[in-house]
């Protein structure tokens, strides 16, 4: 009897356990479907991104590619899935059509070094060999401290490029046309001031000199605008020759003598070495130094002091708060001038920017000098930075690698 009861209980337990297990399994199934649904949703969200999207595993094999990417690259999902993204599938080159080597490609940088890339300097080549300028963002996927793949988002920027170029070309032609009238004014005032057209009264001379001065400002401004447009168009060339960098800096200072003389801050130079030979594009290098020194002059009170120093700094040394990663030739221009307000320091290299106190002290500035200097440095592999305190002064650093400026061919 007892055993019968025991058996019955046992069977009941078993049934209950079975039901419980079934319930768990059913719940699990429901959860599983839910999870799968969620995952599918997430993938759908990913694939619906309006830019081209490619996800790879740690070996660079394509795991996911969306419709936009297929369309942009002229490839079908079926032909690329599981293949290495930057290898067989994709042609990637620079503006001049030079193929970018594997180890330099953004996807490879993400997978091998874990480096994220955001750039718009490359071109992607479609299956049919046509190409388009591309803006790329590649990020490594890091999971439990390991790079397990990479995500690339990219888009075709042909249209943006065209607009940019149209703008710059317009400025370039406009600058040329704008320079013709002030050129005529320049020649006319010079003829008049020469006295060959008759003797001038002191007042007439004064006014003519004022005309000449204002006219020259107009020409300078137009030149600066022209330079900006060339730089932005990427249309300028950097042609280097072996030059004595110290001698060039000295000759810039000599050239600026007319504005450094008289009621101006004192100018001192420190050239520990007289000969430092570098591969330089002289006109561009001069433009940078001229801009920095004229700024120091304009933004320092006449009783102040400006020091121009030329030196070489070795790899690993720190100068002006910056650790240098290779050997550099550095020009340091320090002044005891008005300085740059702390809150505006991050805008110093932007186009047309002028600090509030700069506007006050020197009304004639273009707001283009530092922007041009920075652009040239960016294109030629140099560095430019500064330290400044309002009402104490500024120190600007212009550094060219001892290996020289990087050459660049215009387009």
């Amino acid at each position, binding site marked *: 009897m007892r055993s019968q009861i025991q058996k019955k209980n046992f069977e009941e337990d078993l049934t209950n356990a079975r039901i419980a297990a079934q319930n768990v399994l059913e719940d699990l199934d429901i959860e599983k479907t839910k999870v799968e649904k969620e995952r599918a949703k997430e993938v759908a969200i990913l694939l619906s991104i309006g830019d081209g999207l490619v996800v790879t595993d740690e070996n660079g094999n394509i795991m996911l590619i969306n419709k936009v990417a297929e369309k942009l690259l002229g490839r079908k999902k079926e032909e690329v899935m599981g293949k290495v993204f930057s290898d067989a599938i994709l042609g990637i080159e620079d503006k001049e059509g030079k193929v970018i080597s594997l180890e330099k490609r953004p996807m490879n940088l993400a997978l091998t070094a874990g480096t994220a890339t955001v750039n718009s300097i490359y071109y992607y080549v479609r299956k049919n060999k046509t190409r388009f300028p591309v803006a790329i963002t590649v990020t490594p996927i890091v999971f439990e401290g390991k790079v397990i793949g990479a995500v690339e988002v990219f888009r075709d920027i042909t249209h943006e490029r065209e607009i940019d170029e149209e703008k710059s070309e317009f400025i370039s032609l406009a600058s*040329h046309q704008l*320079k*013709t009238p*002030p*050129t*005529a004014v*320049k*020649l*006319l005032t*010079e*003829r008049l001031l*020469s006295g*060959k057209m008759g003797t001038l009264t002191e007042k007439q001379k004064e006014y003519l000199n004022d005309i000449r001065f204002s006219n020259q400002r107009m*020409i300078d401004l*137009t*030149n600066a605008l*022209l330079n900006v447009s*060339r730089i932005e168009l990427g249309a*300028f*060339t950097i042609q280097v020759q072996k030059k004595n960098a110290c001698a060039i800096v000295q000759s810039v200072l000599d050239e600026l003598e007319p504005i450094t003389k008289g009621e101006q801050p004192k100018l001192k130079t420190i050239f520990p070495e007289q000969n430092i030979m570098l591969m330089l594009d002289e*006109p561009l290098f001069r433009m940078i130094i001229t801009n920095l020194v004229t700024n120091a002059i304009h933004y320092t009170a006449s009783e102040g002091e400006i020091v121009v120093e030329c030196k070489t700094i070795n790899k690993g040394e720190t100068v002006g708060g910056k650790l240098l990663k290779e050997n550099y030739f550095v020009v340091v221009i320090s002044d005891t001038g008005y300085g740059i307000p702390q809150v505006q320091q991050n805008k110093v290299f932007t186009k047309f920017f002028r600090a509030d106190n700069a506007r006050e002290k020197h009304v004639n500035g273009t707001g283009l000098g530092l922007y041009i200097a920075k652009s040239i440095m960016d294109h030629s592999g140099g560095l430019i930075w500064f330290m400044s305190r309002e009402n104490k002064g500024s120190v600007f650093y212009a550094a060219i690698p001892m290996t020289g400026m990087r050459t660049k061919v*215009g387009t």
Partner: protein
Amino acid sequence: MIEDKKTKILIVEDEMIINKMYAEELRSQGFLVLTATNGGEGLELALREKPDLILLDILMPIMDGLTMMSKLREKDLYGKNVPIILLTNLSASEEKIMSAITKNEPAYYLIKSDWDLSQIVEKIKERLSRKV
């Protein structure tokens, strides 16, 4: 400069005021000055009058300066050797100008807006004294 055989300079420039300023300054310096306002006219004058030096603008109607220069250089021995100073407000780093200059020596370029009349005259005299 010998009075009865004045040095002849041709100015090819479409901007009337600029053309006039160069011409008057050079005349007052004792040069014999011829002027043209486009490349076509300039080419014709150059071949007929054989000036000792040509001041040449680039952007001009009918025929631009670079075209005129290459036509002149191809024409004959005189055209091949006459010194040319390109006066332009186009930036000299423009690829087109650079290659035209190297191809068409002896030629120089000056950026108009950067140069005073007196400096241009100096440049011309310097070029003329160098008889190569």
